[in-house]
């Protein structure tokens, strides 16, 4: 089946999400090519075994619709049936718009897919990951938005050979582009993640989490409640609308464990939860649950590690 992956660039390389999907299409032996959208000058995204096309956007204008026009054209000209992308901001925008051009509703939050007698069938996560929903796609084109970490990333060599297509800008000028500084261990690839919730009581108390994170060489995450409250930038949100993490150890500090949070962390290998409410749903996921006050337990941890 002719397959297209919408690729994304992070730090001048293909994103892990792109590589995860590539691994899956390889295991299904699909005839795969990648079209990557970005605005970097010379990203290292060429792939030894796959055709790569680079759609280069101008970073100072919002011209995703131009990218969509181009991709639609390629899909139709090359008779591509299966279109895949990560559930990230950009890929969601692109695949949603493509679905209108191709008159085929996409499936979101996909955690697995297969081919069955010429049809694509998908498994997607619903209800914040409490249930799995199986669908058969009956249209000529199948469009899938894949949850990060659904598959392991492929190991590939990158090269500099790919075709670049320069996209025109649009009238919508973008300014004050702000790139968040990334320092210390990153959520996606840390072995230990410590996350904070409203049960840290006040923003100032996040210092306790920072101290612990430094001691354990851990990345710091948070719930949407505290991201919305401005305690932490969005890039650190764990959950349905934030990042998906799978560390060896996940320490949930003052987090109730709403399904939308769980879906982003429940595949962690070992979960430690600290919450003063014995009935908090997070304890259903915890390998070690401490019913106690974060503001008393964490300082003692910091003193004793």
């Amino acid at each position, binding site marked *: 089946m002719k397959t297209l992956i919408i690729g994304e660039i992070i730090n001048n390389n293909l994103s892990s999400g792109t590589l995860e999907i590539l691994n899956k299409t390889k295991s299904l032996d699909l005839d795969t090519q990648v079209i990557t959208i970005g605005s970097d000058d010379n990203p290292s995204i060429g792939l030894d075994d796959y055709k790569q096309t680079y759609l280069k956007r101008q970073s100072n204008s919002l011209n995703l619709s131009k990218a969509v026009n181009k991709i639609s054209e390629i899909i139709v000209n090359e008779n591509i049936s299966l279109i895949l992308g990560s559930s990230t901001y950009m890929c969601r925008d692109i695949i949603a718009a493509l679905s209108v051009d191709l*008159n085929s509703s996409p499936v979101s939050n996909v955690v697995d897919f297969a081919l069955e007698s010429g049809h694509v069938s998908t498994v997607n996560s619903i209800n914040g*990951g409490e*249930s799995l929903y*199986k669908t058969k796609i009956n249209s000529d084109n199948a469009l899938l938005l894949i949850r990060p970490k659904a598959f392991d990333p492929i190991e590939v060599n990158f090269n500099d050979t790919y075709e670049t297509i320069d996209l025109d800008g649009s009238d919508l000028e973008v300014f004050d582009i*702000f790139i968040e500084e990334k320092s210390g261990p990153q959520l996606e690839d840390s072995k230990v993640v410590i996350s904070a919730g409203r049960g840290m009581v006040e923003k100032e108390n996040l210092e306790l989490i920072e101290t612990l994170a430094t001691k354990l060489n851990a990345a710091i995450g948070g719930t949407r409640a505290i991201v*919305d409250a401005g305690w932490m930038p969005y890039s650190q949100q764990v959950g349905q609308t934030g990042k998906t993490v799978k560390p060896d150890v996940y320490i949930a500090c003052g987090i109730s464990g709403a399904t939308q949070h769980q879906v982003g962390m429940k595949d962690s290998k070992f979960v430690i939860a600290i919450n003063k409410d014995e009935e908090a749903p997070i304890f259903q996921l915890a390998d070690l649950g401490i019913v106690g006050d974060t503001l008393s337990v964490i300082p003692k941890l910091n003193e004793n590690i």
Partner: protein
Amino acid sequence: MKIAVCAKQIPDPANEITYNDGSIVRPEEQVLDDTDRYGIEVALQLKEKFDAEVTIISMGPSGTQKGLQQALQMGADKAIFVDDDSLKGANSLMTANVLSELAKSSFADIVIFGTESTDGYSGTVPQQVSRYLDLECISYVKAIEVDDSVTLTRQTVEGSEKLNMPEKCVISVTAGGVEPRYPNFKDIMAAKSKPIEQVSLSDLNISSNQNLEFIDIESVESSKSGDKIIDEGEAYQEIVNKLKELKVI
């Protein structure tokens, strides 16, 4: 300026969601999706500055219309909705198709969305509508400054960026960017006399179809029976021991 805000009525999130034949079971009384309060708030801030008319547009079983009332109580001027049995279990594309037709019929310049609904969370409807309407979608807006012109701040993977709102566009608003207002008693009373109009599906130009066939739902067993320890001052030691065992320290 005419503004349409797409807002959904959903089963009260305090209750467990149940499914029948792949579709969410919707009680008579549904509430306004909290996610949509952010979009409505943005619309109302624009209304205050530019004297805009704000129409709520919605698709799905209308029932007691409580959710629509809640949207009107916040300060929207009127609501229009489509409620048709054939739309039960509508996929995201069909939903977008219906909403874009409603946006057209209300002559909206600006069409505003949440980023994902609480019950369905496909997260694709705003961009699909923008494509149907042939407008740019300024997605994931997390802040708005209303002056003589309007500046929108978009969340991006790496940080953020700003744009000036054009005369016509689609906007999706993330939760948390703005503070949705709470209606007071006067607002609640005023909402009762605002128009709510049902539009017939047959009056709309629908070209999408149900290409997704439901096969099965399976629940995921995720509970673990880990140790639960009540802290009496020394529970931190359990964590330290565990971290040593796991070779984190």
